[in-house]
């Protein structure tokens, strides 16, 4: 089958990556197969489970519902890009600390979703936290510890921001 291929340039986790893909290549397949980033998982292939969630210019999207060619030139953050300078992010740490994962297959999608959510809403209420992850399925945990992890991540994040501010003040003084 002859089909047109397209060259796409994506900034993935801060690194410029190129791939040549047919127009129908899903972003999830592009990330996993063309770019070798298998941390993004595919659980349902039609946007229900949320395991494939990545950040597109900072906003969570289903990579299984996104064609790679449509995001040419944009920035993508996958689970592999959440750690900062070799240290796990507050959201990643909170998920391990709170035992918010068992098999872990859904975890990358939750992490991306929660990362964007806490950036926009650093101190969510219970209802806000629930709604934030209502589009991600987990089959192992019954969600109890995932909810705890969202709040714990907010705490860690707040403490880190506070510590950084303190450090900046001290440095300024």
């Amino acid at each position: 089958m002859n089909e047109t291929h397209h060259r796409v340039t994506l900034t993935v986790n801060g690194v410029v990556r190129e791939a040549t893909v047919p127009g129908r290549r899903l972003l999830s397949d592009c990330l996993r197969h063309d770019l070798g980033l298998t941390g993004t998982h595919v659980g349902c292939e039609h946007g229900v489970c949320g395991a494939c969630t990545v950040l597109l210019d900072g906003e969570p999207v289903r990579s299984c519902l996104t064609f790679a060619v449509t995001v040419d030139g944009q920035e993508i953050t996958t689970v592999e890009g959440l750690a900062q300078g070799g240290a796990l992010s507050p959201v990643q740490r909170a998920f391990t600390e709170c035992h918010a994962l068992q098999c872990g297959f859904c975890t990358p999608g939750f992490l991306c979703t929660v990362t964007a959510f806490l950036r926009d809403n650093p101190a969510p209420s219970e209802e806000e936290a629930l709604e934030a992850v209502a589009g991600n399925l987990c089959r192992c945990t019954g969600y109890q510890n995932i909810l705890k992890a969202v709040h714990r991540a907010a705490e860690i994040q707040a403490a880190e921001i506070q510590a950084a501010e303190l450090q900046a003040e001290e440095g300024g003084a």
Partner: protein
Amino acid sequence: MPSGIGESVPRPDGNLKVSGEFAYSSDLWLEGMLWGATLRSPHPSAWIRSMDVGPALAMPGVFAVLTHEDVPGERFYGLEHRDQPVLAIDQVRYQGEPVAIVAADHPETARRAAAAIVVDYEVRPAVTDPRRAAFDLSCPAVHPGGNLVRHQPVRVGSTFAAEVVVTGEYEVGMQDQAFLGPESGLAVPAEDGGVDLFVATQWLHVDQGQVAPCLGLPPEKVRLTLAGVGGAFGAREDLSMQVHASMLALRTGRPVKMVYGREESFFGHVHRHPARMRYEHGATADGRLVYVRAEILLDGGAYCSSTLAVVGNAASLGVGPYEVDNVWIDAYGVYTNNPPCGAMRGFGAVQACYAYESQMDRLAAACGLSPVEIRVRNAVSQGSRLATGQLIDSPAPLAEMLTELAAMPLPTDPAGAGMDGAGPDLRLLPGGVAQATRGEGVRRGVGYGVGIKNICFSEGFDDYSTARVRIEAAGDEPHVLVRTAAAEVGQGLVTVQAQIARTELGVERVTVAPADTGVGSAGSSSASRQSYVTGGAVRAACVAVRERLGALRAAHPELSLVEVLERCGPVEETREFRHRPTFPMDPVTGQGNSHTQLALCVHRAVVDVDVDLGLVRVVELAAVQDVGKILNPLALEGQIHGGSAQGLGLALMEEIQVREGRVLNPSFTDYLIPTILDMPPMRLSILENPDPHAPYGLRGAGEPPTLSSTPAVAAAVRAATGLDLPRVPIRPEDIALVPASRP
């Protein structure tokens, strides 16, 4: 011991899983590998008149197209009974049965090639009614031996009349395990003519024992390594792509990867047996059970899988954890042309639990007792006997558990009732903001459920695990390596194995090696058995290592542990561990000590039901479970949460809908599993009444909550609506469209 048993030690794979580095079976990749695809039957029942693989073979990029004629060895496999063809032989018995397999250089090419295979089917009438399959002698046979896979009676006593009698007919729909990581693996041809298989499974050795004969290879040439497992819940007990990928790899001489998509996954594994059950309970006027009669009919679908054991569980636990002197149970498992059913968390016991608990509520109503009181009056305890005659010889404090559960505070603030002028918070109503009312029809209900599950394999199965433990000096510290073939499927066994080694050897640095068939069998990661059996094996191997170390250290009292290890070399021991033997059930009376351990869980559910819309919101789930000994509090709670969620799903939403043998909803759009908005906050109380027969006194914990949450939720919906609701999942139309029967 820091990070030993009893502590909430974090998962050793946690950081890998949150950083995206953990390699699931679907992530495996090798240079030059091919992709496998499966052609499946579109028909529940048909003869295959002919097959033409030519069009597939002619496609560029296709390396192999194989049918049953290409199976190198045994052409059948199966967990308990080898009745399932590797690839269909002249006949298909269910929709989705594998007919041919393809290897190609790209997954899309492989799928297109599979679709290009021409199969000429002669469609036959499908046997889809399990009752007809079981009892109608004129029903066509799905297999030559007839449609009855197992009939297990239980017969105790002779009094089948009582002052108060309640009857009911109940139905449980076909539930799917719906793990999130689809079936997948990589088969790599080896230089010795064998194959190395990297796969997500629940029991490496039982896979090996089925794959090797089908490949015509000795077991040592079929080496399995556990790849990352994206959930299991029973669905990975049976083979899926193991033989297929290996056949393609051996044929092409190239590594072959197979990954099912979600739709294919629904056809690629067995489901929970749907059940039809008739119960009759007789009791004294003050609510003490006199007798229970039950007929439990389990639809096993097209192949046997674990139907034999499912029937055994349903029969032996069919009255639940209640004392009753007269029992007449007939449990049947049958073949039909419906999707094959086998293991799912709590199997056999889940179905019966929904029915007997529904009956206990009916009995409570008939006797004018509360649901808690009727259960307390009939509760088993240590020293009671099951319907099989088996003595419960470890703590079973059901009455105390129920009392504690009932005393837990109830959630306040009924969402729709007693609204002030501001109106209810729509998000808290059944259906949330998407629903169309203001909560006028919302009613609250509370229900209770009790479940009893056998832990470990039963009915005489030689159930054991093997562990190899090695201690050596690594730098200036002792290091322990634990090696077993036990499958970590998410449950946290990898954490617990290390905790046990730390506790037994007093060494902090412990590594659990990847699971593979290079060490003896660990048995299955099912039946809530791995902490017990593999935990027991790890402990036994550690004790053996400790004894040898003790002798070495006595001989060199001047040396530290590390110095001893440096001078004398590593110490390694391998041990097998078996639980107490179990025995078959008598084929006529069902009597026998068929189980080694029994575990109890009780749930209370609080629901709000919009009786006009038929929508249910579970407000809270509370549970009390006796686990004997808590090995890891955080991981244990996670198991109870997750098991409860799956039981909630069965009560309210989860069903594979099958019409005339065809699956109508093989997707996550149409097969619903609970989201975080469906799953309420949980209140837990975990008891530790040790089982003196088990390592550390522990009691398997993964399955019991899956039993009791379903009837608790169903009972709560009944309490809110006054409806009978004799079927789970309870659908909106079961509540809102009941013709003029609402009280």
